[in-house]
């Protein structure tokens, strides 16, 4: 049997951490773009669009992320397309992220006083223009803290990709545990690495939130 030193374990985990980071970044940015489109749909006055978005959000917020991963993994395969864990994880995490970001951002949009909508429509701005020039610039200021806060949930969410076989930090931990039989050490290190990724973001989110409260 191969002998793993502490440094072998740590370096293997750190290599796998790169994939956790890559998957998190993709899910967060793609999720953000989808979320922005959904935000326009959700807040628009066209009823079917708003309804579709509502159901979409209900589904992705109301079912376990793990189920969503399974559904993408096995669902796409039904079309006869070969799905890699990578594709399924990216898609599931993107849609899952977008649902939460849309809801967070909607809250920010709705916190903008009604007078801003009335004043801007009195200036003959269209819905898209109102959002673009009046509402979003104000809402985005409030949105930064909860958005950064949610990025922590995305990083933690990527851990579930391990279950459909995507090799990232958690999966690497499981594999190293099977090879070394040192679960306490391996999972402590895995937890520590996640903590190092997430804590700065949590801390930053709290700091922005505090600053915003002082400014108001």
């Amino acid at each position, binding site marked *: 049997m191969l002998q793993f030193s502490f440094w072998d374990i740590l370096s293997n985990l750190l290599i796998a951490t790169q994939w956790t980071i890559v998957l998190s970044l993709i899910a967060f940015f793609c999720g953000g773009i989808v979320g922005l489109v959904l935000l326009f749909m959700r807040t628009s006055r066209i009823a079917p669009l708003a309804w579709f978005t509502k159901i979409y959000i209900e589904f992705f917020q*109301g*079912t376990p992320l793990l*189920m969503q991963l399974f559904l993408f993994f096995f669902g796409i395969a039904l079309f006869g397309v070969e799905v890699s864990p990578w594709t399924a994880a990216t898609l599931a995490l993107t849609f899952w992220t977008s649902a939460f970001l849309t809801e967070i951002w909607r809250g920010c949009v709705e916190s903008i006083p009604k007078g801003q909508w009335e004043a801007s429509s009195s200036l003959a701005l269209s819905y898209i223009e109102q959002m673009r020039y009046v509402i979003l610039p104000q809402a985005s200021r409030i949105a930064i803290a909860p958005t950064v806060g949610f990025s922590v949930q995305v990083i933690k969410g990527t851990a579930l990709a391990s279950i459909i076989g995507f090799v990232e930090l958690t999966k690497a931990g499981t594999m190293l545990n099977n090879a070394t039989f040192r679960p306490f050490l391996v999972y402590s290190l895995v937890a520590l690495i996640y903590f190092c990724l997430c804590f700065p973001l949590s801390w930053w989110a709290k700091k922005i939130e505090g600053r915003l409260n002082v400014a108001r």
Partner: protein
Amino acid sequence: MSYKLQFAELLPYWNVLLQGLVFTIVLTVVSTVAGIAVGTAGASARTFGPAWLGRVVAVYVELIRNTPFIVQLFFIFFGLPALGLKLSETTAAFLAMVINLGAYSTEIIRAGIEAVPKGHIEAGLSLAMTKWEVLRRIVLNQAFRKIYPALSSQIIIVMLGSAVVSQISAEDLTYAANFIASRNFRNFEVYLLVALAYLVLAILTRAALRALGRVIFKAR
């Protein structure tokens, strides 16, 4: 699409699904009650307790909030036996859930406590109530009213997150789904059905919590 969905093949397994569903519900209810108890104690310690205890609680909260639930679960189930603490799948699942929700509810309840005006605490003290009487009768009461919606959302998040306990073979709803899929290979059908079961569970939980809130906080 050439594939035909065949939900009929799930029928023979209805009792497996039902058992899993019951496990998930019990797991959620028990960890909600215990987790909120932990959270109340933690938040009280952070705001009213000695400084050293507050720091211990803060470390606990940050450790849990900044690591994935599945890693916490693996640490408890696979890691702790190395220290001589061997737990069954079910015990490990319950313990991980309580520890997880305990940390989140500590943070939520603490925010509620801090939103209670300082003057209310002083008024209580001036009426000769002790610190703990003030905490129980005035502060926590108001705090829970304020944070009830946030706490309700967290309970649902934790309920959905509990799907992960299937990975240590705790026999919840997701475990049932995996079991069935391994028998009849109707993966998509099983997971779709179970996903919808979770969705219904989430919607019912939300409605139940809202109704419960109206009963508890019936005033105004």
